[in-house]
């Protein structure tokens, strides 16, 4: 389940934020915000995507740049809200 979620997020990030000709690798530890792949503006749409996909609401105070800075961090954040 966790690997599926990671895959899903990585695919979304690649599709949404990287140009078609980009050679940028995205793994579960790649720095997303501090690495400049996802800016704080685009983070809003990533949050919205996750909320829709998992039918959850992530409070703004939890949606920090640190919490979104890697796929691993995002999965940790999701664990708080997704109950399987």
């Amino acid at each position, binding site marked *: 389940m966790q690997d599926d979620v990671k895959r899903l997020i990585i695919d979304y990030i690649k599709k949404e*934020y990287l140009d078609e000709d980009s050679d940028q690798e995205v793994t579960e530890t790649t720095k997303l915000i501090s*690495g*400049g792949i996802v800016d704080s503006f685009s983070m809003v*749409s990533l949050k919205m995507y996750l909320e829709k996909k998992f039918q959850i609401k992530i409070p703004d105070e939890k949606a920090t740049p640190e919490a979104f800075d890697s796929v691993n961090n995002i999965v940790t954040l999701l664990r708080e809200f997704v109950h399987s």
Partner: protein
Amino acid sequence: MAYSEKAKAHYSGELSALRGSGLFKEERYIESPQAASIRVEYPWGAGAREVINFCANNYLGLSSHPEVLEAARVALGTRGFGLSSVRFICGTQDIHRELEQKLSEFLGTEDTVLFPSCMEANGGLFEVMIDKDDAMIADRLVHASIVDGMRLCKAQLYNYKHSNMDHLEEKLQETQGCRFRVIITDGVFSMDGDIAKLDEICELADRYDAFVVVDDSHATGFVGKTGRGTHERCGVMGRIDVITTTLGKALGGAAGGCVSGRSEIVELCRQRARPYLFSNTVPPVVVAATIKVLDVLSRSTDRRDRLEANTRFFRESMTGAGIDIREGEHPIVPVMLYNAKLAQGIAHDLYEEGIYVIGFFFPVVPQGQARIRVQISADHDREQLTRAVEAFAKVEKKYGILGKKKDEIIAMYGT
């Protein structure tokens, strides 16, 4: 005392962190009016020196134009210095309305409302226009003031890859269930000088029943055959629902901005936009001088034509000299260096050569895309432009990157 040692230490730490990460901004002191050539004291105490200015938004060279200054002087006598009021109490003079009408004529729109700045126009517009049942679909590289405006608004936020029409179309399809969809873009993007595909955006807007909002701050006055802006350049005059723009760049450069477009939306801004309602009116001197700017621009296209010719000359000369610039047609000419320290070093050395430019790097531009942004003005003469090209070539040679392309520069300096 509430401002404790703890608070002091906290704020000092914030400032130290900015300095440590190279993000601390230092101001240069200019001891002359804004112009192609200015007297700058940097660092403070070093004594003022004459440098050629390549980082002002003074695209048309109107910031210190004699007719504009005279109009300001006259207005100071006839309309006073300040109005000590917001617009709707006792801050609207006849000339405010006159300028709004002239801006509508110039931009080809139904109505216009002035704001203290375009930042505030963008900060106030979206909250007035749309609500939680609506969607904002913005280009990912829109200006920070639009981002702030969108954050103040309850509408759902989507963004599309920069100038990627397929991605925009996907977002329009995703949001079909919303009441209103608003496509939001800069007309010209400030860091790259590239022009939004407004013709294609308008086609998509028509097909998917969406509005179009354009911030044309880096275009009003000079982009398009008669300088009306990006909508003229792209052949979509009359098809942009709302244009926001600034009086603080090509149009004299003092202050102020506006929302211009569909009359109902403009009127709602007058009634409800918070930065409009709770900010002082634009000073009469600025209003009168900007009316004169529009008169000058409506009388002749000489200045925008000269700017276009200067831009072409500079771009061709830079490329011919072996300098890696981002291609385009706009007077924003990004000189690509890819590495932040390299951009800072080259800007510093150019200043020593009498060329005033600034380096831009992450987070202002994406990681690995550090650059120097050169801005051309109609007031530069050929000698000044040639001096800048020669200085760039000399300094780039010193750093060993003259004639080198992206991969080679990155191989030498990294990103």
